[in-house]
Structure formats: C-alpha cells, structure tokens
C-alpha cells in the first residue's frame, strides 16, 4: 500500500499484468461518478437497434496489450437461451477472438454464465434450457459438431476448483485417455502432462509430487491444475467461469498472470463479478444486463468511456 494519502473518492490503483514482468500498479482508468450516476431504467425497454447490434469497434491498441494478433475463433450469432419460459440470454451476437481475453461482466442473473456455458453446450445438460440462434466455432455450427469433440476444443474452468479425486498426473492425463481405445502408457502421456503443467504455471510446485493426490493441493494450485487439465487436450477456446472467486488474492494474481500468458495460444472468455479483475486482464469487455448484451468493446473504452448509461452505472459501482 502506498503511504501517500489518497483522495478517498479516487478509485484504488489497478494492478496491471505485463508479460514476463512483475505486476505494476497504475492509476485506475475509471473515475468514480458518485452523484452523477443514475439508476438504470429497469422498466424502459432498451431501444432494439442500440442493444441488439453492438458496435464492434476496432480496439484502440492499448500499449500493454498489442502483443498478439487477434483472430476470431467463436461467434455467438443472435443467440437466445431460455430456461422454461424465462429468457436468460436475448439475441446476443458476440465474437470470441484468439489473442484477446474477453470478459463478460454484469450483475448476478444477467445471463453471462448461461452465455458462457452455452459456448461448449454445457447448458444443454440443463433440462429446461432451450436455445435459438447459432454458435459458430471456426465458422462451423457447434450443433453440427459431435458434442465431445466440441468440448475438447472448447475447454472450461469452473468457479470452484474441482480436481478429480486422483493423482495430479492422472488429473492432467484424464482428458488424454480416450475411451475404449487402448489406454496409452504413462511414458507416452508424460511429455504432454509436463507441458500442460508448465503452461498452467504449476510445474515447479508439483514436479516432484506428480503422484500425490490432487485434493491435497491448495485452492489456487487446484485451480491451476484444472487449467493444466483443460490445456492438456489442446483446446482452442477456454471458458472461465469466475475462476478466482473462491481464491485468495495471491492465487488470484497467479491465475490472472497465467490467463494473460495463455491469451496468444487460446481464445479466452472469462466471466467475472470482479470489475478490477476485468480491468486487469481483459482486452475486450462485454457488459450484459438482464440477458441483453448492452455494450461490447475494448476494455479501455467500456471502463473509461462507456457508450451506454447502464454500463456507466454498473462500472462505476452504482448497482450490481
């Protein structure tokens, strides 16, 4: 903590992650707007033109984040999801690009997790859920793909670390062992397991205990093990559902750093309640509210100069 006295109205400094460098503190991009913010107009129907077709403005190449060329891997196209008769996601169109971290933000119940879970068709497991519109993975409709193939290509990380009750090695190797076929030997799997643990930033801590039970690891380590487990099957897209909400700040920082590093190899979508986290790691931000995609754009723009009143109200902390 800095010892200089800060204006209490000023938002706390934001920790920025720079690749291969220690985290640095920078002033926040958002000035609190207490007094200015207005309650979002809950009753008023949003103008259909303004909401349903978000403008995909070219990103304003932030100095810290121009490292990767962004290529589109997934796209939700006019996607609506309903639970029974309740619409959870309303006609959302949203690209997911490799080379960028896309953060989905919004208050609880706004449909961001539903949207995320639909991208690998996990939402299909919910009995009452129905879906319309299209989800494309590299231009292919995901409904035409075999669901197991889709889920190998679109991995997911959950809110609670959920390693399987087996050894660290077996956790990472689990996805590699295809069903039915001859089970590959440990020696054949080892390079991939080691590499995945390395990419998830866990290898140094566990390389001597690969046979220890995964459940003996700390929460942060477990979550990184889950990242390694997902990476082992070489996904093209990685979905993160509030991956740090159950973790302490230190583990959170390590996970965020890992995610930032992975951005060039895997397209990353992260759902987060933590606006500071979205500011730290996201390149693109999509703000959802009551199932609508209210605003989508580069992180700096959504946080710094939001186009929509509701976005401004949410990112300034007046509701959510």
């Amino acid at each position, binding site marked *: 903590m800095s010892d200089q006295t800060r204006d209490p109205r000023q938002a706390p400094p934001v920790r920025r992650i720079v690749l291969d460098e220690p985290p640095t503190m920078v002033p926040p991009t958002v000035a609190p707007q207490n007094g200015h913010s207005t309650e979002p107009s809950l009753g008023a129907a949003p103008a259909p033109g303004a909401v349903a077709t978000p403008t995909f403005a070219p990103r304003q190449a932030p100095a810290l984040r121009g490292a990767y060329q962004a290529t589109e891997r997934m796209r939700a196209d006019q996607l609506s999801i309903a639970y029974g008769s309740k619409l959870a996601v309303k006609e959302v169109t949203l690209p997911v690009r490799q080379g960028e971290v896309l953060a989905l933000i919004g208050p609880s119940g706004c449909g961001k997790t539903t949207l995320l879970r639909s991208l*690998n068709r*996990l939402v299909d497991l919910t009995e009452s859920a129905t879906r319309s519109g299209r989800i494309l993975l590299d231009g292919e409709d995901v409904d035409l793909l075999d669901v*197991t193939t889709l889920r190998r290509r679109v*991995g997911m990380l959950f809110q609670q670390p959920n390693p399987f009750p087996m050894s660290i090695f077996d956790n990472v190797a689990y996805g590699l062992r295809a*069903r039915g076929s001859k089970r590959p030997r440990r020696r054949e799997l080892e390079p991939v397991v080691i590499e995945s643990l390395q990419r998830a930033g866990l290898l140094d801590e566990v390389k001597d205990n690969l046979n220890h039970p995964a459940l003996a690891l700390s929460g942060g380590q477990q979550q990184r093990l*889950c990242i390694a487990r997902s990476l082992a099957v070489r996904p093209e897209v990685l979905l993160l559902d509030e991956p740090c909400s159950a973790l302490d700040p230190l583990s959170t920082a390590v996970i965020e750093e890992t995610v930032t590093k992975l951005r060039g190899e895997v397209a990353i979508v992260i759902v987060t309640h933590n606006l500071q986290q979205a500011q730290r790691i996201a390149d693109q931000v999509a703000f959802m509210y009551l199932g609508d995609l209210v605003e989508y754009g580069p992180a700096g723009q959504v946080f710094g100069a939001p186009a929509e009143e509701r976005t401004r109200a949410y990112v300034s902390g007046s509701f959510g």
Partner: protein
Amino acid sequence: MSAAAPRAAEEGPAWKPLDKLAVVGAWVAGITLCLLAGSIVVYMAYRGIQYLQPELLTTHPVAGSDQSQTGGFLDPLLGTVILTILGTVIAAPVGIGVAVWLTEYGRPAGLARAVESGVEIVAGTPSIVLAIFGLLIFQQSFFGFLSFTAEGSAVFGRSFFAAGAMMSLIALPLIIGATRETLNAIPSTVREASYSLGKDRASTIRRILLPAARPGIATGITLGMGRIIGDTAIVVILLGASLQLQGVGNTPVIGDLRGTGSTMTSYVYNNSPAGEGNAPQKAYAAAFVLLLIVIALNFIVELIARRSGGGAARAATMKVGMTE
C-alpha cells in the same frame, strides 16, 4: 473473540422448568441407552466366554439330546459366510447399478420415482415376508436347478441359492442408499469438468464417479453384509433348516450351494430354549460369536467412514443391526 461473549451467555435468561426437565430427560435417555448396549455386550461376553471353547468353532454340529454331545457350530459358521458372500455378490452389482441409474440418469422421471418406491418397499418388507415370497418363487419347477428336486419332481425350493437371492434383497436398499448418498455428494461441477474435457457420461461414471464413490459403496456393502448376517427368518424358511451343510449332487461348489444348511442365527434360534435343540450353553456361545462378527463389521464401517474423511460415507448412519 471478545471477552464479553461468555459472560453474556452466563447472564442469559433463566431456564424454564419444562426445558430443564426435557434436558434432564434427554441426558437420562442417552445414558440409559449406553448402559443398555453395554449390558448386552457384557452379559453376552460373560455367558459366551463361559461356554465358548475353541473346538466349538471347528467341530460339526450333531443332533443329540444331551448338550455335551451336540458338537460345535462349524457348519452354521460356514453357512453364515457362504450366505453373506452369495447375498453380497448378487446385491452389490445390482445395487450400484440402480444407484448410478437413479443419480446419473433417472429418466423418465416417473420410472425413477417407481424405482425409488420399489427400493423403499423392499427395504420396508419384513424379511419373513421376503422369505415366504422366495419359497413361492423357488418352488416353481423353473427354478428346480437351484435346489433339491424330490422324486415326483416336487421342487424343494430351499437352498443356499434361494436364501442368498432373498438375502440380497435385504442388502440391496442399504447398498443403493449409501451409493446414492456419495454420488449425490459429488459436486455437479466435477461431472461438468469431465464433460468439458470431451468425456461422455459413461466414461465419467466409470473413471470419476465410481472411484470417488468407493468409500460409500464399501460402507453400503458392509452394512448390507451385517443385515444378511443378522437375519434369521430367511434362513429358517429358505435354507432348509438342516443343522449340517447338505449338498445336492456331486458337483463340489454348486452342489453345496444347491443344498441346505444353517447359519449362526438359525443355530442360536434352534438351540435356545425357544427352539427345539434346548442347548442354551451352545446358543450363548454362538450368540457371542455372532455379536463379535457384527461389532467387527460396525468397526469396519466406522473405519471406512473415517478414512474417507467423513461426509458421504458417514452419512450412512444406519448401522449394522440384527433383525428378528
């Protein structure tokens, strides 16, 4: 913690007389139960050790009017072991299968509810009813190969096979219950994590859920074994009530299983003053051995629950008990 908290508790409102009475009653009830359980064990140990001799465990029982000439209870002991193994071997795969189906599939919902109430009905049926029902079934000539067929093709319907099949029904609800309990305790995100790695439901069950549920399954099986060991009605009706193991035909194992015999419970019953044997010393000795077996099983259940770190396995709080 603030220092004020305990003081506040001390200065709390005075107890009402009725509350005081209820608390005293709860204490008395608990202590009485402890004393009761203790006195059962102590009394059986006193009687058992008095009459239990090592050769009783290794000699065959013989029919006789004098207690000193009726032999030991090797055959009932073997009968208990055989029947327990047979019942468990039938009940375990069926029980695990039903539990997995109920927790992981359970569609259509109506069928799942029907299966659930079926399990409850089986669990609630007195074992003597199961025994009579079993006799009805296994006396059909279709099942003649499972027991002794007399001249004139009357099927006896009583054998280790018949008793084991009905015993499996006694163990089944316990195995289903404990397995479901552990499967339900596995968070749904563990399943979703497996699906997210491109695994289908079958391999998720096989590779993740069943290994994780192993302590619960083991608990259920052990509890079921305890029920089988303790049951008397099925033995008396379906095992043929021959004191010694009496095989049918010359096939070694199958012949024995088609044959009749006795177990520790039926031995205790037959030799107690209530039965016809009237050899109470033998009955006490056998009852003591039976009690030791059941206590050992309870201990194993506790051990499994403790080793697996509590939660799911301990949720199966129902302990091994003797019925009838």
